[in-house]
C-alpha cells in the first residue's frame, strides 16, 4: 500500500518533469537502471582514454599534443563526474570498478576498436565524440538530478572535443594524397562502429521502454542515431570524404537520410568480448589498478597515522 502511494508520487514527479534526487524514494528498477546506465557511461569515459592515449606521445605537433592531452584528461574528469553521480545511488566506486573488472558492467563497444593512425584520432573526435554529444545533450534532461547535472557540466566541456577531431580530419583530407587516404581509411573503419554506439534499434532494445517512461532517456536509440547521421553527412562532404555506405541517401519525403543495414552480429560479438581490443583495454585497466594498489594503501596508511597523531596531541 505504502509502496503504491510512493510509486504514484514518484511517477507524478516524473510526469511533471521534476527531478528525482538521491534521498527521494524511487522504484528499485529505476535505481538499477540508473546504476547500469551511469556506470556504463562512466566506464566508457575512462576506458575511452586508452585508444586516443595511444597517440599522445606520437602527436605530430606540440599544439596537437597539448590538445589531445587536455581532451583525454577531460574524459577522465567526466568519468569522475559520472562515478560520483552513480555513487549517490548507494553504490561505491570500489564496487563499480569491480563490476567493470568482472564483466558485469560494460562500456561502449566503440572503444574496443583499434586506433591505428593519426587519422583515427581525428575520426574518434569527429565521429565518436560527435555521437556522444548527441546522446549527452539529450541526457541533460534526464530525470535523475545528479546525472542531469553531470551531463550539463560534461556537455559544456565537451564542445571542443568534436571540433578538434574534425579539424584534424579536415587538415588530413585537404593535405597530401597520403594524408587524405589516411583520413578516408579512418572514416571507413570507424563509421559503422560509431553508428552502433547508439545501441540496438528501438524495436530490439530491451531497456528502452521503462527508461523512456521514467525519463532516464529522453529520446530513443534510433532517434539519436538519425540525428547524428543527418548532421554528419554534410560535414564529410565539405572536407571531401566519402561515407562508407552506398545506401546512404537523402530522403526528401521523410526529411532525413536513409542508411544501410548495421551489422548487429558484429555489435553483439564485440559487446560480449570478442572485439579487436576488448582484452587489451581490460588488461590495461586491471594492470593500472593492481599496480596502483600499494600507492592507494600508502596514502590511506599515512592519513590514518596523521589522525592518530592529532588525537594524541
Amino acid at each position: 500500500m505504502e509502496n503504491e502511494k510512493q510509486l504514484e508520487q514518484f511517477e507524478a514527479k516524473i510526469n511533471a518533469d521534476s527531478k528525482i534526487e538521491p534521498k527521494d524514494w524511487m522504484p528499485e528498477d529505476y535505481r538499477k537502471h540508473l546504476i547500469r546506465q551511469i556506470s556504463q557511461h562512466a566506464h566508457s569515459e575512462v576506458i575511452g582514454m586508452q585508444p586516443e592515449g595511444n597517440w599522445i606521445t606520437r602527436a605530430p605537433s606540440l599544439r596537437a599534443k597539448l590538445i589531445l592531452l587536455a581532451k583525454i584528461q577531460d574524459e577522465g574528469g567526466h568519468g569522475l563526474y559520472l562515478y560520483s553521480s552513480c555513487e549517490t545511488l548507494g553504490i561505491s566506486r570500489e564496487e563499480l570498478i569491480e563490476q567493470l573488472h568482472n564483466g558485469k558492467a560494460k562500456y561502449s563497444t566503440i572503444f574496443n576498436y583499434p586506433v591505428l593512425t593519426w587519422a583515427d584520432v581525428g575520426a574518434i573526435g569527429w565521429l565518436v565524440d560527435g555521437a556522444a554529444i548527441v546522446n549527452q545533450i539529450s541526457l541533460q534532461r534526464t530525470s535523475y538530478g545528479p546525472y542531469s547535472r553531470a551531463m550539463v557540466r560534461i556537455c559544456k566541456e565537451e564542445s571542443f572535443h568534436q571540433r578538434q577531431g574534425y579539424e584534424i580530419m579536415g587538415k588530413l583530407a585537404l593535405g597530401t594524397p597520403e594524408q587524405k587516404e589516411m583520413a578516408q581509411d579512418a572514416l571507413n573503419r570507424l563509421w559503422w562502429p560509431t553508428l552502433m554506439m547508439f545501441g540496438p534499434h528501438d524495436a530490439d532494445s530491451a531497456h528502452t521502454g521503462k527508461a523512456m517512461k521514467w525519463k532516464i532517456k529522453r529520446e530513443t536509440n534510433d532517434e539519436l542515431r538519425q540525428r547524428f547521421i543527418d548532421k554528419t553527412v554534410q560535414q564529410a562532404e565539405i572536407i571531401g570524404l566519402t561515407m562508407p555506405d552506398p545506401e546512404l541517401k537523402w530522403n526528401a519525403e521523410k526529411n532525413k537520410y536513409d542508411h544501410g543495414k548495421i551489422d548487429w552480429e558484429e555489435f553483439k560479438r564485440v559487446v560480449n568480448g570478442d572485439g579487436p581490443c576488448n582484452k587489451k583495454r581490460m588488461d590495461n585497466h586491471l594492470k593500472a589498478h593492481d599496480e596502483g594498489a600499494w600507492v592507494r594503501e600508502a596514502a590511506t596508511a599515512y592519513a590514518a597515522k596523521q589522525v592518530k597523531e592529532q588525537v594524541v596531541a
Partner: protein
Amino acid sequence: MTKQEALFSYCLRLGDNSLILGHRLSEWSSKAPIIEEDLALTNMALDLIGRSVAILKYAAEVEGKGHTEDDLAYRRPERKFYNNLLVEQPNGDFAVTIVRQFFNSTFEYLLYEELMKSKDETLAGIAAKTIKEIKYHLRHATDWMLRLGDGTPESHLRAQKALNDMWMFTDELFEMNEVDEILIKEGITVDLNMLKANWSKKINEVILESTLTVPTSTFMQTGSRQGIHSEYLGYIIAEMQYLQRAYPNAKW
C-alpha cells in the same frame, strides 16, 4: 661562442627539460594508481609541454633561421637534445616518478625563481608564469614523498629504492659549461653552484620528514650538456618524431 649562440643553446636546455619530462608524465595517462591522480599527472604534463612551447618558440626566434618550435621539437636528432638525464629516465613505479618529480621540481623552483630576475625579458616573463606551476608541482611531489615514505612498509621500501636509483642523476642538474659562463656575465642566468646548497637543504628536510634516508653514493652520471644521453632518449625521440619524419612534406 657568441651570446646569441649561448642563449639559443640555453633555451634548448630549458625547453628540452620541459618537453621530455612532459612526455614522460604524459605516458602515465590511463596508468595512474587512481583516476584523480591520472588527472593530476596530466595537469603537470600539460604545464610542462606548454612551457616547452613558449621556450622553444623563443629559442627559434633567437636562432633566427626561420624555424618554429615544432621544427626544434620534431626535427632535431637525439645528439642535439640538451635535457638533463634525470628527466628522460623511465617512469618506473609511482615512487620513481615521484622522486624524479621531487628532485626536478625542487631544482626548477630554485632556478626559475632566479630566472624571474633575468635581464632577458622573455625568459623572465616565462619564469614568472611558470614559477606558479612549479610551486604546485613541488607541493604535489613533496606531499607524495611524505605519503610514500611514511605510508606502508612496502611504499617506504619503494620510495627508498627510487631515491637510491635516481640519485646518480642529481649532480648533472647543476653542471655548467661555456653557455652558462657567457649568460651569467650577461645577467641572463644564474650560477647553478649557488643553488646547490639550497637544493640539498630542501631535499634533505623532506627526505628526513618522509622517514627516508638521503643516499650517500657518490657516483654521478653526466653527459647531457654535450648531448650525450642515456639510451632511453632515442626511443622518446623516435616515438615523438615518427609522423614528422615519416611524412616530411605533410602539415598536421
